């Protein structure tokens, strides 16, 4: 149980995919303008991350490792994830239109997102079991949500402030992102302290 908590919370805070590992920066900067779209995107990311991990794990352990072609990991995973997300989108559109309306716009955006690919590959490097991998993927998705929601709040403050011309727009956003990222460094060590080794 303790180990599970450590995996979950370190994925959310200490190893935050966006702010510490710098994966998924594109949606982080692109979709964080409004709180609504940030939440929608993040929910889609959580969903796809867990699903992608559940599908790629058996492929890795059952196909790539026995055939000794682990070097094909990246290309095979991209193929699988892209096809999977498309399939999920078609299915949702047909059977759960309400969910498709709220997630639909963001699903195609994350087909080849590096955060999704990253979580599937990094889990394997950590040698997690199937359940641990799912937990870690879920944590990574929640971390993504946390980062996006926090940052969309900051961006709304940026929008309504007067910046020097040189910093207007993207530069101001990037500087703010770096400061938020820096603040997440403060979490390293906190999780070990909380749940103990």
């Amino acid at each position: 149980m303790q180990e599970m908590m450590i995996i979950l919370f370190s994925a959310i805070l200490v190893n935050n995919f966006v702010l510490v590992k710098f994966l998924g920066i594109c949606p982080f900067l692109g979709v964080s303008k409004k709180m609504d779209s940030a939440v929608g995107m993040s929910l889609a990311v959580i969903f796809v991350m867990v699903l992608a991990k559940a599908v790629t794990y058996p492929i890795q352990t059952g196909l790539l490792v026995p055939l000794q072609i682990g070097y094909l990991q990246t290309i095979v995973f991209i193929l699988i994830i892209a096809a999977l997300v498309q399939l999920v989108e078609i299915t949702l559109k047909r059977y759960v239109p309400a969910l498709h309306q709220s997630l639909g716009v963001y699903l195609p955006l994350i087909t080849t997102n590096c955060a999704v690919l990253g979580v599937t590959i990094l889990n394997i490097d950590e040698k997690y079991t199937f359940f641990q991998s799912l937990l870690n993927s879920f944590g990574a998705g929640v971390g993504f949500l946390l980062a996006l929601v926090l940052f969309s709040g900051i961006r709304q403050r940026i929008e309504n402030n007067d910046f020097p011309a040189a910093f207007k727009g993207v530069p101001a956003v990037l500087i703010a992102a770096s400061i938020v990222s820096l603040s997440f460094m403060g979490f390293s060590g906190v999780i070990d302290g909380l749940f103990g080794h």
Partner: protein
Amino acid sequence: MQYIIPVGLVTAMGLLAGGILTIADKFMAVKMDETAAKVLAALPGANCGACGFAGCADYANALAQDEEHAVKANLCTPGGDAVAMEVSSILGVEFEGSSSMIAIMKCSGSRDKTSYAMDYQGRQTCKANKLFFRGRGTCEKACLGFGDCVNVCAYDAIKLENGLAVINKYKCVGCGLCARTCPNALIEIVPDKTRVVVGCSSVDPGKVTREICSIGCIACKICEKSCKFDAIHVVDNHAVIDYTKCTNCTLCAKKCPTGVIHVFPKLAGAAQPKPQPVLAETAQAEASARQV
């Protein structure tokens, strides 16, 4: 052999994924509603949201999916009667006539009437200025004069005149974008037969209003007493007209001691051509908004 297995595997996976997707697409296809497409083509495409939906496409879908016709076909105020009639004929419902609306401005505080309390140097938008204390006007509810409403109007119907947003009644289609943008909520959407407008939203007591604005409503209630139709009342220290009761008799305007109740001239001809949205500009603004 060391080449055949990986190449074969990836090819097989690609074919399998492609096959599954093709089959899924065939079996689970959702037909784009033909009615929705037709309705969408009939709508003006300004995506202003006056109908209460997220955009023209959203409204078209709602109309097409609604089999009991609970969603009204005449909600598109910018399109007016012409669009309402076309949409009704596509859907096969009875034409009800569009509810034409216009925007009215409930502040008259131009620079010669009232003054600024601060020399504001920050970001030049009403929204930003409103966040800074309570806006730059001496009156809390004064027009801030940065023109957020001017920028949002797709019909070029609002101009800033001497620090006050002035609505051109002939260009306005009543979409309500400006009403939702104004941080002081000074713009109201009313039926387009409206001719009498109280040009003030001040919440200060009459004495204070008199000191800071030469035209503002002083809540003397003379209009309330003069109205024969119980249509005008002083609420929150300013007069408010109930447009369901107002008959445009203009008696209140004649009695008003500060002259803050304005009267529009009668429309010359009822058949004014409906203006078209300045689409090129709107599209450009949207494109620049989308950029990171």
